[in-house]
């Protein structure tokens, strides 16, 4: 068969750095942000687990809005500002989660960092762990049983200054 390989060049501002990704294959136009991010990164802070929008591992913020990047087509967000967990490296959130025992295998963690970081940016201060559990309904964690995560997340959110 003749090589009918298509290439689609996608660009986005990922954690404040412009990144250009060449996506190949007939389906390249339909590629999701998650796959595009992973295509060229050595370490991609957003993780791909279920690829069907059920687990939250791939959660990133796109132009200020939380999205499951395994479902969001890359082309629709061409040139977008994408924030992965790397955007919260300078905050104390990662350390707080690690210290609380909220990180075991850590595969769910970057997505949760984005979710919690986004809640903080919106000034969300849940009153109870149950309230925070509702807000994190999109996220699965198979390791921790959630308790240490909710505990640390609740405390951290309530300490944040309103922006």
């Amino acid at each position, binding site marked *: 068969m003749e090589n009918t390989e298509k290439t689609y060049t996608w660009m986005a501002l990922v954690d404040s750095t412009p990144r250009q990704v060449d996506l190949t294959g007939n389906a390249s136009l339909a590629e999701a942000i998650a796959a595009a991010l992973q295509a060229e990164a050595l370490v991609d*802070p957003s993780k791909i687990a279920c690829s069907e929008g059920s687990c939250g591992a791939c959660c990133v913020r796109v132009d200020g809005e939380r999205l499951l990047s395994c479902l969001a087509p890359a082309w629709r967000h061409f040139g977008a500002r994408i924030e992965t967990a790397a955007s919260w490296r300078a905050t104390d959130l990662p350390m707080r989660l690690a210290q609380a025992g909220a990180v075991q295998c850590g595969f769910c963690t970057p997505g949760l960092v984005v979710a919690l970081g986004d809640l903080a940016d919106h000034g969300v201060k849940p009153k109870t762990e149950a309230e925070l*559990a509702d807000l994190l309904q999109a996220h699965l964690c198979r390791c921790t049983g959630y308790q240490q995560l909710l505990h640390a997340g609740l405390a951290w959110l309530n300490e944040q200054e309103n922006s």
Partner: protein
Amino acid sequence: MTIAGESSPALRDGLAKARGEVAFGSELRVAGNLFAIALRSPFGHAQLLDVDAAAARCAPGVVAVLTPWDLSAPDVPGDLFYDQPLSRRPALSAEALHVGAPVVLLAAETLAQAYEALRLLRPNWLELPGQFSLEGALSQGGAAEALPFGAVHWQQGDPQAIFAQAAIVREDILRTSTVQAGALEPYWALVEPTAQGGFIVHNGVAAPFELRRQMAEFLGLSLQQVEVRCPPVGGGFGSRSDDLAFLAALLARHCQRPVRMQLQRSEGWLAGRVRHGAQLRVRSALTQQGRLLARELEVWYDTGAFADLGPYVVLRALRSLALYPAEHQRFIGHLLRTNKPVASATRGFGNPQATFAVEVHNARICKQLGIGSLEFRQKTAIRAGAINPSVGVVDTQTGAFVPKGARISSSALPWCLQRAQQGLEEAITHLPACAPGWLRGQGVAAAMHTTGKGRAEVSTAEVFWTPGLLRVRSGATDQGGTGVASVLAQIAGQVLGEPPEAIVVELCSTAAELADSGAHASSRTFVAGAAVWDACQLVLARRKAGEPGELSARSAWHPDGNAPPFATCAAVVDVEPATGLCQVRWMGLGVDAGRILNPRQALGQVLGAAMMGLGFALYERLDFTADGRLASLSVADYGTPRATDMPPIDVWFAPSVEESHPLGVKGIGEIGLMPVAPALVNAIEAAIGRPLPGLPATPESVWRACRGEGGTCT
């Protein structure tokens, strides 16, 4: 010296993971690696008559298409059951014995190209009849036995005679479902040929040295020609023992290029390993006052298409029988073959199913005789110093299990029972009353597990010390943030008096030749921790003797025994009989895992295990159609608990020390799972006053039970 408990600042790699700086295996690429996928059987049992691969072979980017006729693929050796190769299986076969069985392998330059080419394959299938349910296999009698010697069996005394005359005889039959470990990271393997004709296997396995042994045999190479490396794993739970590394190795050898193979999450339900669905029969003879005279446990575990680790898994059911000693006891463990995905190791290793059945049976006995659950367990459960009959060997000619006479080296189970009961009483007084139309029930359960597999356990460590720099090298792996590196650092740091920042821990590949039997059966602190401790003691002795320069030592540790950890769970559940809905209001776990070295990590292990127990109890189930296909492939439908499903959970660690171990520790990774499902079901049964058929206790199952129907439970 003893190692003091401390929750070190973070899991060694926890911070890096939270900062998104850790690359997991599923992100691993090596220069020029091909992407492989398999054509997998859509049928429960079928023969691939032929496959037209012409279009796929010349599709863009395709480098190889391997059909069962293109290569004489050797068998995957599988683990040995004692010395028997009972889990040998074909790597690639035209006869697909279960849905998802690989029949054609394909490698291409990009993943997208591999998928495009997969669609061009034209398989010609002949669907075959098969055994697609445990019920079906049960009705076949001995024909479905997966083991050449039939059932594993053990007897002490004469239970039949006691059953014939006892005042009270009760029998319960319960079911548990096939479930998935459900680790978040997809399953993957990457195999690279080396310039010397060997292979480097990157795979998130629990037991890299065992994989090296099998891979060397599979490829006809020496052990030195195969290196197994384990990058960080996004959850293991024992389940990362699929055949992907072997399939990738076939392609890597054929193409002489690195090959990575990864399952889509939905494929993972098919091709990954699952927990055995089971039927369990428990029969007890008692006096009117509730003294246990005789007990019989017969289990039927659905191993799917291949035995894999099934023979060992089914043996682990013995723990639940051994927990309540009676003079007369009998165990019969069947491993049944069906045309379903392969069941193997999954957190708890055969014990969750049996503990569920025995503990629900115990609760029903207590109800029938009007005795307290706590009192019955306090009186009946095994004590420190007693012989633990569940430790032994199987005669692979006859299937007879022969206990070794091992004794329970420590038990704080009485403390755990007492603590759980106290917690239950406190919880009941604090919980708001249940809603109108809802009923509240309380349940308790206990469990005994194992630390290590009780044979051939080993871990090797090397320690290098100069003032201010302590380097620890271990052959142990970390199966997904179980905290092995942290605890090894803690042990070494305390023995040699170095702060955390002076300590480097390397979990090495097999090339370092630090033999380690694997991260299974809650055993790494017990085995690898002791190896590090021992090596540090050697360094300490040399330091005290005034030796100059860098001091180093090596230790290969073979533990003595398998110190059983214990746990109890108490639970409060509200049930709405009109709908069958259940709401877990509270759970408390008392845990005897010996000395707790890192309280926060230990708590995380118990909470995570409790969550898996809750999923097993109420939600999780792989549903199969009557012809052996999976009824649902989505993660969303499977029923992994979310944060909103979790009740408040209290965990209490018993002030316990395991005397047989230099650090006083026992296993922590699995024990928290075992008592959860029976405690929850006991609470539900107490609420509705009727028996449930088994797991999961879905609203449908509870609703039917409320109406007096037997209910369904697949």
